[in-house]
């Protein structure tokens, strides 16, 4: 079954950033510079947190604006990035109103969620999780 990542209950998010660390840890790094998920306060911590993550759109705007077909629409929603085709124009990031396309400054290419669920494995409060598409 095709999965996607979902924000299950944002009120359970404590802002620990373990999801962000988990995402970059996939590539052997400690930090956030390869993370496809981001948690920030909703304008001051008292208002809680916002979890910014790819919603795996059925008709993804990011793919629609990609001039080189580097972003392919995944079956069931979301996109798959073909880095070889990507020219780093950044249109995808502009098209995503969720702000869920992050930028890899080293490669000058987008960071796109792979829906692997590593981040959710480390969310001990179950604010995020993988769900069936």
């Amino acid at each position, binding site marked *: 079954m095709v999965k996607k990542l979902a924000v299950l209950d944002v009120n359970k998010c*404590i802002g620990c950033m373990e999801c962000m660390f988990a995402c970059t840890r996939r590539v052997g*790094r400690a*930090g*956030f*510079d390869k993370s496809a998920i981001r948690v920030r306060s909703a304008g001051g911590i008292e208002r809680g947190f916002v979890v910014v993550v790819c919603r795996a759109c059925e008709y993804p705007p990011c793919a629609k604006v990609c001039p080189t077909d580097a972003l392919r629409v995944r079956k069931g929603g979301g996109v798959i990035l073909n880095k070889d085709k990507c020219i780093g124009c950044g249109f995808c990031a502009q098209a995503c109103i969720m702000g869920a396309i992050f930028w890899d400054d080293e490669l000058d290419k987008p960071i796109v969620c792979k829906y692997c669920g590593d981040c959710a494995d480390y969310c001990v*409060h179950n604010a995020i999780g993988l769900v069936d598409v």
Partner: protein
Amino acid sequence: MLMKVEELNRVLYVDLTKKDIKVKDRTDLFDAYLGGSGVAIKLLEEECPTGIDPLSAANPIIFAVGPLTALYPTASKTVAMFKSPLTGNLGESHCGGRSSMAIRLAGYGAIVITGSSDILLYLTIDGDKVKFRDASSIGGMDAQTVGRILREAETGSGVRTIIRTGRAGGKLVRYACAVSETYRHFGRLGLGAVMGSKNLKALVISADKSVEIPKGKRKEYRKVYDEIQDVVVESDAMKKYHDLGTAGKLYEMNKLGGMAYKNLESASAPEEIARELSGENFANKFLSRRISCSHCPVGCVHLASLRELYAPGYYFKTTTIPYDNEPIYAVGFMLGMEHAEDCLRMIDAVDTVGMDIMSTGVVLAWATEAYGKGLITKAHTDGLDLQWGDVSTYLEAVEKIVEMPTEFYQNLAMGVEHASSVYGGQDYALAFGGNEMPEYHTGIACYINNLTGARHSHLDSAGYTLDQKLIGKEFSIEEVVKSLIAEEEWRQILSSLVVCFFARGVYTSERVVKAMAAIGLENWSPEKLEVVGREIHRAKMNFKFREGFDLAKLRIPKRIFEVPTPHGLLKEEDLRKAIEIYGEIISAQ
């Protein structure tokens, strides 16, 4: 940008006088002393000349993080060191929030701030870019407002720390704190005043790098990471600190008779007060959100939501206020508050001006007793009638400590040790080594801790925990002292790794060695950690002795011998004996 594990060795030196920066390789310090407290005390030795005025430009501020920061869960503290304007001696304060993650991922193991600026500044450290920015327009502002303004004015949302002072820092209240992420503090010993004396209003530090796990180590690293994560998540600490938070133990401590109440008039508040000020009551009535420091799944930070009518005509405001064990003790139990709401109002007021809440509570408790005994009068208090539990008067007193309308408040702003030396009432001026006391009146160990701990903080050696373990048991004073020294030495390792003390059960020496090895730091062993812990502790004590600390001259307020502890009444001769034994042990080893 990618950096190596070893690049923790980069120390950023900021000279506020010359508005100049340098980055130096201090592998020497990080290899020998890990990071955090260990590296900070060595930098303090280098940067702080003997005998200086803590509020002069010569006093350095050092922030240090550790080798596990950003790499493992709960290595989430930043250690600040400076000469304390409150005690005139070693100043060391720890803070969580996003501070350690941001410093490490900005590319530094430590930041050393020296000199003093001619104009009010804030610093932005955005990875390698360091900027001195004019803070004239935010001078004299409270800590929350400064945070709100800088949050919008500067970049790096979500991956940065904003460390700032409130009004008290600029006014040089000796126990002014520095606040990070609105709800976390470098609370104790006056970092805020040192920042104020340097004309430094805030630091905004943004992360822009990541640390590369050595290629051959990645599998091992993930394995050790997962083991640590599992232990953290399954530990008792997780449940305890997430559910009710640190406030969860207040009720039991009061029931035990180990809770300083009304300036230690007794060691236990009446049952109805204890219920009102319990963690359970705060959670049931006011808890609105639990949050966490970066890279910590626990989420111990408890935020209350207080809705108040503040003006006629349906003008309501809802304030978010952090609460913890110590603040509830200091401005709740200590000031005889009868309502949790009043306690929250006080926490908010003290946080707003940016003072250490523990010192503030103890200072006001002393003032209330001294006023009740006629030692001070309304002429001193600028007309305030200080009475236990009278929150509106206490709120005015907080303002007056910052604004200092009379000489009395100038003295209160210098701490209870100083104020009582001017007005008398030293028998019930509850400071140890110049630092206002924590809640514990649990037995001899907590006071040996308060007196001999390098920071005079209950977290130095957790004497209160030892006292509780010893209830109903036979023990010698020597055993207690030895046990406290061993605990304080081990805690130097934790605070050099900048592991939160709440996770101390997770980071055993074996696990620390494993965690270090899995990121390529191979030359550590439990034995070596023990030796280095002792070395760091002695370095801190040597700094203290250098600055005039004298175990034989420690003042012990008589009050603590007048009120029974769970172990019965304490005797001064026993405590003096313990201090003597402590002195012998640390000078021998």
